[in-house]
Structure formats: structure tokens, C-alpha cells
């Protein structure tokens, strides 16, 4: 078993690591859950533009006083930062599908060696619908998967081949878990950074996905 870390530490570590990856001026769409936290950890001196699928370009944090006329994709109230704009759904998804977003950050049920991502439905359970996820993974320039390394039963979410219905085929560029950063380099999922709690051997032994090991595996940035 890989060590079990405090849930809050895990969430913050993953969000923080992805935030460190985003260049100044990036336009990003953040999914529900851990991805939402990414905007809290953008390093000082950089600013990213957060797009919400329901039509905000330049969304800010939850305001002190809720105003339901301004909500984000998860239904929570948001603020508008100076320089923001509001568009209709056709423009919003034109931005998403048309390659105008530098990055999207989403969660995963499974992600596999080819970069296939499954995160919208577990057959047998009530079907929630894909919402905007299929468009996001199709159109964003870089697709970040933010996920715990294993599911609640301790099973690796980084798998050889997805068995669940896909959100997108071969779309994943970067996977960040509490233990590692995996990047798709020349089409191969490559272990690039590792957290202090595990060794490369331990990580590989508890990961179903076959990982190529980078020549130099760096300590995972942002871990204390």
C-alpha cells in the first residue's frame, strides 16, 4: 500500500502543483473539486484567467455577499475580476472547443497509458451526463488530470486501459496525484516528479499504468 496522507494535504498538494505549472497569462478552465482549488495557489507575480463554462472569462473568488446573478459552473457565486467578460454558451464553448484555452484541469475515475480519460459515468449508477467535460478535453491545449493516486479501495486510478466510458480519447497531457507528476512525452506516460513519502520503486509497484521513468525524476515541486 502507498502511504495514506491527510485528505486536505492531498487536495492542496495536487492543486498547488498544477498551479505552479501554469504560465503567467494562461487561460484555464477548472473543474469541480480539487481543480477548483488551483486558482488559490497561483504563485505571486503570475496571473491566470479563469474561464467558467457557463460564460465568464476572468472569474474571481466567491464574494463576501452572494449575488446569484453571477455564478460559476458548480452553481456557487463568483466575483468578476477587472478585465473580465461574460459570454453566452455558444461563445463559451467556442472558446473551449476552438483551442482558445491554454489548460483545463479535471478529475478522473480512470486515466490510462494512452491518455484516455474516464470521468463522467460509472455504468450501473445513475447517469449524471457529461456536461462540458467532453468539449473541455477535446479543445483545451493542455489537459491536466488532478486526482488522488488510488481510489477509496486503494486501487490505482492510473490504469493500463480505461474500462469505464471515456470522456475523451488520448486527451490527457499531465497527471498530478499526491505522489507524482506524470507527463505524456512523445506519446508515452513518463514519471517526472515524485513526492517525498514514496520511492520510485514503491510508486511503480502500486501503479497499474506502465510508467516510463524520466532520466532524472525530480522531487515533486511544492511539497513541504
Amino acid at each position: 500500500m502507498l502511504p495514506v496522507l491527510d485528505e486536505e494535504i492531498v487536495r492542496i498538494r495536487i492543486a498547488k502543483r498544477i498551479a505552479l505549472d501554469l504560465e503567467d497569462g494562461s487561460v484555464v478552465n477548472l473543474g469541480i473539486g480539487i481543480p477548483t482549488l488551483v486558482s488559490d495557489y497561483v504563485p505571486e507575480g503570475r496571473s491566470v484567467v479563469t474561464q467558467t463554462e457557463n460564460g465568464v472569462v476572468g472569474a474571481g473568488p466567491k464574494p463576501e455577499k452572494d449575488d446569484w446573478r453571477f455564478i460559476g459552473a458548480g452553481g456557487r457565486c463568483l466575483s468578476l475580476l477587472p478585465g473580465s467578460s461574460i459570454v453566452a454558451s455558444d461563445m463559451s464553448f467556442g472558446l473551449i472547443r476552438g483551442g482558445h484555452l491554454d489548460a483545463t484541469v479535471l478529475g478522473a475515475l480512470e486515466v490510462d497509458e494512452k491518455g484516455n480519460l474516464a470521468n463522467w459515468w460509472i455504468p450501473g449508477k445513475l447517469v449524471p451526463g457529461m456536461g462540458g467535460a467532453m468539449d473541455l478535453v477535446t479543445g483545451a491545449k493542455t489537459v491536466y488530470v488532478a486526482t488522488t493516486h488510488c481510489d477509496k479501495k486503494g486501487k490505482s486510478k492510473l490504469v493500463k486501459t480505461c474500462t469505464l466510458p471515456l470522456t475523451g480519447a488520448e486527451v490527457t497531457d499531465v497527471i498530478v496525484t499526491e505522489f507524482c507528476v506524470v507527463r505524456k512525452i512523445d506519446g508515452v506516460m513518463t514519471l517526472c516528479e515524485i513526492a517525498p513519502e514514496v520511492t520510485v520503486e514503491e510508486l511503480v509497484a502500486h501503479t497499474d499504468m506502465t510508467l516510463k521513468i524520466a532520466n532524472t525524476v525530480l522531487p515533486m515541486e511544492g511539497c513541504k
Partner: protein
Amino acid sequence: MPTKLIKPVMSADEAVRNVNDGMSVMVGGFNYGGVPYTLVDALVKSGVKDLHLIANDTLYANDKVPEGIGHGMLVVNGQVRKVTASHIGLNRETGRLFNEKKMELELVPQGSLVERIRAGGFGLGGVLTPTGVGTCYEDDKQIVEVDGKRYIVEKPLRANVALIRAHKADRYGNLTYFGTGRNFNPAMATAADLVIAEVDAILELGGIDPNDVVTPGILVDILVLKGDGYYASRT
């Protein structure tokens, strides 16, 4: 002043009398925002049934609000024969009725849904999109290859009636939008035989700067003033 261009202002109850059993109805909104709550409440009250509901989502129905919110109530109330939406996970009744084969469900990626509506309103035979290619979503879809890249053919979508939510209207039905309430509303205003707009204010001609108009009044048939319901008054 040509009177035909002046759009009737009706009560919500009066306006939804145009919706009959079996009709397809588009309802604007994304989550809580931009939903024509007053019109939807009236539609629930009217008891009209066998509707084909076309909306981004079916809002909420859960333990806290078993009766549902907004057009989620139409589903809970058994007035809907078919739902076309991108996300239904927050309304437990939509999933349950579909699972029990009591209601049809067509799930469409959100960007494809709005493009289908836009195609329906803009006279297009459909759109080609890469979204969903390589997933099970493409299984029952026509695929077209353009310059070596595969696209799904998304067919146009229209409705008998669209219930939309806007901010201000003038008497010609020109509309502006506010905040994140815009979402699907401008697209839906183009894609239905009858368009009913719920608005915060109805102004005389000249009350809206033409530069600010998003939906031209020629697309709008009936105007209804927003009511004072819990959600209508907060959005």
C-alpha cells in the same frame, strides 16, 4: 408605429397557455442562473404533459428540495416525456425516471447541445464537431472525415416553444442579458416557433441602446415580467 411589432405583455399564466401537451419546449438557464422561473412555475401549474424538455440541465431535486427547483419541477411532476440535456446529475428524479424507463433521455455534450440549437435557429443542416469522437458517444452518430480528421455530425435542434430569461426588454422585444444569466438564452431565442421572454423590466422604444441589444426583437413573440418567487427574485 406599426403595432404588429409591439410585442404583447402577458402574465406568465396567460403566456404558457401557448404550450400544449406533447410539445417540445426549450428552457434557458445553466444551473441556477438565467432560468425563466416565473414562466416555468406557471407551466408546472398548468399541468401540461408529455413535454420534450430541452435544457442544459434539469436543475435540482434532492432531499432538501424533493419537489425540485425551476424546470426540475416539470420532471418531478411527471410532465416530461423526454429530456435533452448535457447534465442531469443534480436532479435525482431525471435519472430515476430514465432508469425506470418512464422517460426518454438524450444526453449531449454541452458545447454540442448549444451548437445543435444554434444550427436549428440559424438554418444549418447541423454541425461537425470533434467532441465525443473516440468515446461511446459517437456510437450511434454519423461520422464525417474532413482533411483526415473525424467529426461527429450533430443535427439541428428546434422546439415548438422557447421559454427564455433576459434582463431588459423594450416593447419590440429587443433583449439585453445580465451576469451569468445569459448562457443558453440567446441561442434558444433563435430556435423555436414561439419565443416567450421573462424579463426584469419592459421599457418603451428607445429605452435600450441598439448597441446593447443581444437578441433582436424580431425573434421574440411574448414578454412576461419576472415575478417575485424565491428564485426569480434572486436571479
